């Protein structure tokens, strides 16, 4: 290769437009440092926005010349983040690479040769993934014989021929239909309860002088997502006049309907949950109460034509609210399918910025974890958020005249609403409408 001098061609890497509503982003970390060679589309930085985390791909191949924004800095969309020298060549050494090079004169491995040292047990080729899917093989239990422990096609062929494939346990995500108590001791305690047991009280209560770390404590900085959630929640508390209204709903018809439809939908790949029924009733009822499908902008109330229904999804690391667009166009099955799809994408971190933008009403579902009452915080700038609680069997009076009592699957719908936009009567009428739709559900 000739070593003719190369021309420097600086290209700017800018903060990309991530969805319509995102105006700024925060650099979490640089994946490359100045001087590193970067392939086109290789990730150079991680960026977090108030909606979502994004990897910034390089617009071209080249050498990262300079980073212009420090991790932690928040800049507007379009702001230059770094300079890339697209005129550089991959062979040219990084200034520091000289120091890293071993002094021995061992010849370099030819380019493109797979490095046998690297652990490849976690990398699965397209055919390996496909075969694992088709045969229901849990790859984590397969010993790879390729370089770096990679699972090869032949490993799976041998496994399948031996008839010993370890079927992946289908994740049983569905919660028990009814629970007698919100507290289920056989379940592992949620992460929050795993906090270290109370620290000795001797150091007093509250901030330790000089910021000393108390014995028996661990500190870690909040993840960007945690910080965003904290900011948004406080901001919403400051902004809206929160009020919470609760109705009790008898779900026996919904339970029956679900039992009727569940298997057929499952065959079509759609998980039918109670949430889908509630979503369907809410969407229908919003049509009669447009004030609840609205947002507040200064002194104005903005009524939205479409119902873009946010569904809160709990993640290990926090909470995200993907949005079902034009929810009013969807049937029960359509809603169930979208809920399943978005929850799946949320959990696998595949949501895109537009998936979480533009919601007009939000439903949250902590009931799946056993809760029976809550006062949720509104997702700004919306005016209401509805909370579906656990479905619990209770004795209820089912007939006013005879005062007959029956055991029925009951739940609470708790809705926090903004008293700036509406009053309690409207909120109660809306909730009663949802309640009626659920209690009178027709197959």
């Amino acid at each position: 290769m000739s070593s003719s001098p190369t021309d420097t061609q600086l290209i700017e890497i800018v903060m990309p437009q991530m969805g319509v509503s995102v105006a700024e982003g925060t650099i979490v970390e640089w994946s490359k440092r100045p001087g590193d060679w970067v392939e086109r589309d290789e990730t150079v930085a991680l960026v977090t926005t108030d909606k979502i985390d994004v990897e910034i791909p390089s617009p071209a191949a080249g050498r990262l010349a300079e980073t212009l924004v420090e991790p932690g800095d928040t800049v507007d969309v379009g702001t230059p983040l770094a300079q890339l020298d697209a005129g550089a060549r991959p062979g040219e050494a990084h200034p520091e690479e000289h120091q890293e090079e071993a002094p021995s004169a061992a010849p370099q491995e030819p380019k493109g040769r797979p490095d046998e040292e690297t652990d490849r047990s976690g990398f699965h080729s397209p055919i390996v993934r496909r075969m694992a899917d088709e045969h229901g093989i849990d790859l984590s239990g397969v010993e790879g014989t390729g370089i770096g422990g990679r699972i090869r096609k032949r490993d799976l062929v041998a496994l399948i021929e031996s008839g010993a494939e370890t079927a992946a346990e289908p994740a049983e995500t569905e919660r028990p239909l009814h629970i007698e108590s919100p507290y289920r001791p056989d379940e592992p305690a949620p992460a929050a309860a795993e906090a270290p047991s109370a620290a000795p009280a001797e150091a007093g209560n509250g901030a330790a002088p000089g910021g000393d770390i108390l014995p028996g404590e661990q500190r870690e900085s909040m993840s960007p997502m945690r910080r965003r959630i904290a900011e948004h929640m406080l901001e919403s508390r400051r902004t809206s006049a929160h009020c919470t209204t609760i109705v009790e709903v008898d779900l026996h018809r919904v339970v029956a309907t679900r039992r009727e439809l569940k298997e057929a939908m499952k065959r079509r790949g759609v998980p039918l949950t109670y949430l889908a029924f509630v979503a369907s009733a809410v969407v229908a009822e919003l049509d009669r109460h447009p004030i609840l499908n609205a947002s507040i902008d200064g002194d104005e109330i903005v009524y939205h034509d479409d119902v873009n229904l946010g569904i809160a999804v709990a993640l290990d690391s926090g909470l995200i609210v993907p949005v079902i667009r034009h929810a009013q166009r969807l049937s029960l099955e359509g809603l169930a399918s979208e809920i399943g799809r978005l929850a799946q994408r949320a959990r696998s971190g595949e949501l895109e910025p537009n998936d979480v933008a533009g919601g007009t009403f939000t439903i949250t579902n902590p009931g799946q974890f056993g809760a029976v009452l809550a006062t949720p915080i509104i997702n700004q700038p919306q005016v209401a958020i509805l909370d579906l609680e656990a479905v619990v069997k209770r004795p209820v009076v089912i007939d006013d005249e005879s005062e007959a009592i029956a055991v029925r699957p009951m739940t609470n719908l708790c809705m926090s609403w903004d008293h700036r936009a509406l009053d309690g009567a409207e909120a109660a009428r809306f909730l009663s409408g949802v309640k009626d739709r659920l209690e009178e559900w027709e197959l």
Partner: protein
Amino acid sequence: MAEMTYLQAISDGLREEMRRDEAVFCLGEDIGAFGGAFKVTDGFMEEFGADRVLDTPLAENMIIGACVGAAIEGMKPVAEMQFADFIACGFDQLVNVAGKLHYRQGVSVPMVVRLPSGGGFSGGPFHSQNPEAWFLQSPGLKVVAPATAEDAKGLLVSAIRDPNPVCYLEHKGLYRHVKGEVPEGDHAVPLGEARIAREGGELSVIAYGSSVPLALQAAEELDEDIEILDLRTLNPLDADAILASVEKTGKVLIAHEATRSCGVGAEVASLVSERAFESLDAPVRRLTAPDVPIPFSPPLEQSVLPQLDDMKEACRELLAY
């Protein structure tokens, strides 16, 4: 059947077609009285006369141009480039005239350009090239590249009978080194059909021309479960055969003596990644000459052209992946 060298099989195919069809004639530099630089047309002038075995001036542009004119008039010319490298001088007639007449005017141009190609004999940069990728970039030309004696005859016969201009790449290194049983008399191998040269299940080596015997030898010496697909025709490419082999093995090595960039290997790799992605178990790899002219110096030439050890190493790496 008769045992023939690759070169004898080319002669045999050409002779058979000239005997069978009066419209077939050949032309080129020193092909008549001298019998051709490599003696493919030795004895042709005696058998067919100087009217059907034309010695031409050293002017490839004229040779190809004459072919086009004759083909339009209903003849079936078979031109010999003394070395494939020299086709560059006839390029305009081939690419811009012969390849486009059918599309422009609906005229068929049934002609064959024989292209003695390839290196390995210290012929230097003007006598050793493998220029097939040039023609693959030119719509309207068919391109064939036999690897065995039987195919050398059968593909030449089909090329002569084809209504399109066909570039017929005959590898000089195979001329006298490859021998095989060849059907006597009428023997045609259809264009556009690849051939499985060796069955296997762990790795597909997709090759043509001189890389086929190299791959066969490597597979024998490695004694591994390697499939070797001989493309035989480079345009039209037998996509079905390529995809079937990849779907079977999941690993692909494409081997050719021609230079690397934008070559047959790149085209096949692209086809595989577009249409067989979900069958892949390893990166698609190429074994080719680097993007340099062929050096005259024997040790340098050896380092440029893919060798048996290179083939074995590439196979081993992919098998181990």
